[in-house]
């Protein structure tokens, strides 16, 4: 392991971290603009041209708000909650292939921080520990509403994790690899998994809404019942971390959907254009980010279109609606795979 390699990985990791944060920042503005569009108003347009400085203003505002901690809160866990949420939200980006390879000075550089051979399982693990931040924060606040929100969040995330994992398992079955890099590489050109796995894609998308605690499944922070849910007692930048992590999760989920079902950095006719290797890689990354932006838009589109579920409906839908579909999809996939591929 030479210093060259470490340096390149460090730069890549830092770039992806920075990119996630900036994208999450501007996703808040994008969301408010979309909300404005759906509600026939303008949305934020005072700070900077088209309101482009609005996220900066929001950040500064959050930093200068009062740091409040409830008197009987568990001090360490109260701070650990939002920190963990943020940390886990940023973890998943390590295994996503953000592009092909760049050839610089005879060396080949992959645009992926860690090409581990268990990438998909790593994503499962990150999803499954994502619930800790919310639970710890909600409990440590020493507030009934926060606790209710945390308990709701936990049960919701556990329930939808199952269907989500099953829909990913079908992808693993067809591609025969647990490495995200292989899965994306196999969808070369237009061989996107969404054409062979339409049911899996729909299940995955719905579960992604639930896992990111987004409307119509935003029960953990349902204002009409729980004030603010698990972050009721949070203020200042700690609240900012929770809200910010939500947007990072949207970004990462969109990236996962794009890589698993929509070919990741692959785009049609990528080898027929007669472009150089580096050019194809750059265009691929641009294509990936176009896909991510589209799915980010879908997240917001759904939020401002559908009303919120009731809690029992949410649970029934997760266990009795999505689970059977995911299972049937898995069995059917196995069946067809055995019949036609071998």
């Amino acid at each position, binding site marked *: 392991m030479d210093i060259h390699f470490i340096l390149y990985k460090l730069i890549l990791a830092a770039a992806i971290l920075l990119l996630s944060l900036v994208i999450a920042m501007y996703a808040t503005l994008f969301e408010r603009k979309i909300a404005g569009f759906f509600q026939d108003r303008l949305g934020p347009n005072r700070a900077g041209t088209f309101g482009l400085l609005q996220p900066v203003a929001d950040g500064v505002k959050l930093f200068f708000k009062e740091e409040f901690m409830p008197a009987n809160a*568990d001090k360490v866990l109260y701070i650990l909650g939002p920190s963990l949420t943020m940390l886990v939200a940023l973890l998943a980006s390590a295994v996503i292939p953000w592009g092909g390879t760049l050839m610089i000075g005879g060396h080949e550089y992959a645009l992926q921080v860690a090409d581990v051979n*268990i990438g998909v*399982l790593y994503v*499962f693990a990150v999803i499954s*520990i994502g619930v800790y931040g919310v*639970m710890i924060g909600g409990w440590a606040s020493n507030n009934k509403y926060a606790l209710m929100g945390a308990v709701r969040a*936990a049960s919701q995330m556990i329930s939808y994790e199952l269907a989500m994992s099953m829909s990913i398992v079908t992808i693993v079955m067809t591609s025969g690899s647990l490495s995200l890099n292989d899965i994306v590489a196999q969808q070369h050109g237009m061989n996107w998994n969404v054409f062979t796995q339409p049911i899996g894609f729909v299940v995955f998308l719905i579960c992604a809404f639930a896992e990111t605690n987004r409307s119509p499944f935003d029960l953990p922070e349902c204002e009409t019942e729980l004030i603010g849910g698990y972050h009721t007692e949070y203020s200042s930048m700690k609240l900012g971390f929770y809200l910010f992590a939500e947007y990072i999760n949207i970004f990462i989920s969109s990236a996962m959907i794009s890589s698993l079902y929509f070919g990741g950095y692959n785009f049609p006719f990528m080898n027929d254009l007669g472009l150089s290797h580096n050019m194809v890689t750059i265009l691929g990354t641009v294509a990936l980010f176009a896909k991510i932006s589209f799915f980010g838009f879908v997240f917001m589109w759904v939020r401002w279109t559908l009303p919120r579920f009731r809690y029992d409906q949410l649970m029934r839908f997760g266990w009795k609606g999505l689970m059977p579909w995911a299972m049937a999809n898995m069995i059917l996939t196995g069946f067809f795979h055995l019949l036609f591929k071998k």
Partner: protein
Amino acid sequence: MLTQYLFFFLSAVALISAVMVLLSKKPIHSVLYLTLTFFTLAGHYILLNAQFLAVVHIIVYAGAIMVLFLFTVMLLNLNIEGEFQKSTLMKFVAALAGGMIFLVLIGTLKSFDVSIVSNPEMTQIGLVKNLGKTLYSEYLMPFELSSILFLSAMVGAVMLGKKDKN
């Protein structure tokens, strides 16, 4: 060199957090320390080149079992300090049982041949491909049997948790 430092770091964290599971007053802190212990154990698995085991360890223990533990502790609101006062007899029995397990562990470790595995096939066994091949060829029967055991446990849990309609 780096792996050696990592080993000592992980071992230290594992031991400290394992002790803190016992020493911390609030049950919720115990649960969180136990989770931390599981993470350090997963780190050890990675050092042993068993990535699959490490990730499954995190998914199953930290991601599922400990979340349910945390869930239960939160719902029962077991955050009052010193709520669990055990009688002297119970303490004695618990110490005895724990001590016996400790003795058994020492016994097994003493007879265990501590040698460095140099066979390259053995160091690759933790990778998912090799593990899957071994599980589905050499150990197919026990593997399938344990899956049936799991299924029956799941069905049993659902049956027990179901509300009686009558």
